């Protein structure tokens, strides 16, 4: 009788063991997934190179970094003292003492006697003091004379040399006329998303925001269309010529046959790109070919501007942005440096959500404006009489 009972118990134990095994696998999978997705904050420089990648802790919507991040990002010779009972942290860096109290937003900086209120207070996690990302965003510009841009979606923090447009540069930029070309318009709505959002409207809205932002930098900017009207390529180019444009930026939204394709793309008009025109053409097209070749004379400057856009916009994207050379009709008779910027794929749900997000489009406008500044500075340096000869 006892043996029968033991057998019953053993028979019952087998499925319990199987169940337990599955549970273990499930728990292990969840743990591994958690480890694989352990968040980090990536600090990058103005050119997009990684300065440091630091493991971070997420609490709610806030991101916290260990004290070690100060050494890696602000000052390798920085030291710190932490008073556990009082939960006070003192950081010594660059001849300054920064005093923080865990759970309090106010910090003091000696010997300057400055006080600063952090957007998020520092906290302790596992009895260790942790600094919010805002600490770096707010403190770095004060300590290192840099500007900091934070991409909260990608946990990416860019540190760039602080530079403002000096009056001299502003004078130079007064000569610059940027042509922003919102693609399509009127009955030509361009691409359309499955939710009914039209390319022509998305690019016009962004173009107007960009116009406003570029004007604030003291740079002239003209749109090829201000309303929902159809313009031919010829009309757009005429507007660029009439306004003595020196740079042509055509804004579009992309589409692909796969809903998985996503991201920003930059296109250059190059008749010898991935798809190319033959070297010789039939006589009827000689005139047109000459025009195409004339546009190609601006290819180097177009590449410079495309690279400036790529550097600035890479900050907003998970994967590096591609620059693609192909013969483009929109830029074929544009006799100035010119680029087509495809802001995202209307055929991709993620991109569509981004393009519907005002915060994201504002960051795109900022990135394009920075790219313009970068490009103009580069060209001004090259044309400056004091520029070193190559």
């Amino acid at each position, binding site marked *: 009788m006892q043996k029968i009972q033991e057998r*019953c118990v053993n028979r*019952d134990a087998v*499925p*319990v063991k*199987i*169940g337990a095994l*599955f549970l273990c696998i499930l728990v292990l999978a969840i743990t591994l997934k958690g480890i694989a997705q352990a968040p980090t904050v990536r600090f990058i420089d103005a050119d997009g190179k990684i300065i440091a990648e630091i493991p971070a802790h997420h609490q709610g919507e806030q991101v916290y970094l260990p004290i070690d991040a100060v050494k890696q990002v602000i000052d390798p010779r920085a030291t710190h003292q932490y008073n556990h009972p009082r939960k006070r942290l003192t950081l010594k860096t660059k001849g300054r003492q920064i005093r923080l109290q865990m759970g309090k937003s106010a910090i003091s900086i000696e010997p300057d006697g400055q006080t600063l209120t952090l957007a998020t207070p520092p906290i302790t996690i596992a009895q260790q003091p942790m600094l919010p990302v805002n600490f770096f965003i707010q403190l770095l510009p004060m300590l290192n004379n840099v500007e900091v841009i934070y991409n909260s979606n990608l946990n990416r923090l860019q540190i760039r040399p602080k530079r403002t447009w000096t009056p001299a540069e502003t004078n130079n930029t007064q000569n610059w006329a940027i042509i922003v070309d919102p*693609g*399509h318009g009127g009955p*030509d709505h*361009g*691409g*359309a998303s499955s939710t009914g959002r039209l*390319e022509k409207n998305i690019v016009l809205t962004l173009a107007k925001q960009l116009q406003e932002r570029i004007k604030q930098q003291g740079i002239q900017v003209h749109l090829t269309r201000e309303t929902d009207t159809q313009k031919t390529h010829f009309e757009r180019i005429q507007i660029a010529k009439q306004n003595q444009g020196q740079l042509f930026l055509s804004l*579009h*939204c*992309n*589409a*692909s*046959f*796969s809903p*998985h*394709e996503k991201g920003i*793309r930059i*296109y250059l*008009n190059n*008749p*010898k*790109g*991935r*798809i*190319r*025109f*033959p070297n010789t*053409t039939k006589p009827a*097209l000689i005139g*047109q*070919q000459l025009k195409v070749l004339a546009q190609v004379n601006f290819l180097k400057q177009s590449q410079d501007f495309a690279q400036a856009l790529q550097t600035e916009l890479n900050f907003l994207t998970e994967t590096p942005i591609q620059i*693609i050379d*192909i*013969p*483009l*009709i*929109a830029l*074929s008779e544009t006799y100035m440096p010119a680029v*087509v910027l*495809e802001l995202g*794929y*209307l*055929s991709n749900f993620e991109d569509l959500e981004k393009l519907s997000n005002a915060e994201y489009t504002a960051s795109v406008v900022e990135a394009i404006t920075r790219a313009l500044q970068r490009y103009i500075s580069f060209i001004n340096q090259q044309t400056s009489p004091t520029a070193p000869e190559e």
Partner: protein
Amino acid sequence: MKHNNSAGFSRLLVIWGITLVVVAICLGGTLLLIERSKLTAIPVAPPPLPTAANPSDTPPPPQEVNLFLLDATTLTLVPIKIERRLHTNDLTKRLNQVVTALIQETPPNFRNTIPRGTELHEVYIDNQQTAYLDFSSHLTDGHIGGTTAEFLTVTAILKTIFDAFPDHIKQVQILIDGEEIKTIAGHLNLSQPLRLTQ
């Protein structure tokens, strides 16, 4: 009573375990089938034989042709082998057959980059080895737009033709309803014959 509860719980665990195993096997099997389908050439029934002018003419043997289609996973154009009985003597007819096959084929896991419903009216090859492909206006009207999509449409056509006729066709010009066009969807310049940069 306790024993009954324990037995019920164990039964539940067994059912749960078996369900998980079955789901895992089904998932694995599906993935295996998907992978296999990518590797296998698409079995396509050869089209009706070309009408023989002379009843004594033997039908041409089936030939392998690569059609360039968009791999939905890798997002690249990949060659997919199909079999066709191509006209042996007439280059223009062979070109027509290959481009028509490119328009029609959409195997699982691949995307055709030519809008469904597009027709090929005619093809012509000049003495400069330029192939002129005259499509119906649905190629432009039915196109989804976007530089990437337009680039994929044109590249798929060019790659398929240059792969099938490496010695006979050097460049391709796309026409719509017999007319030269500047572009399909407003981005790529198609005003001249096109080649591919290797």
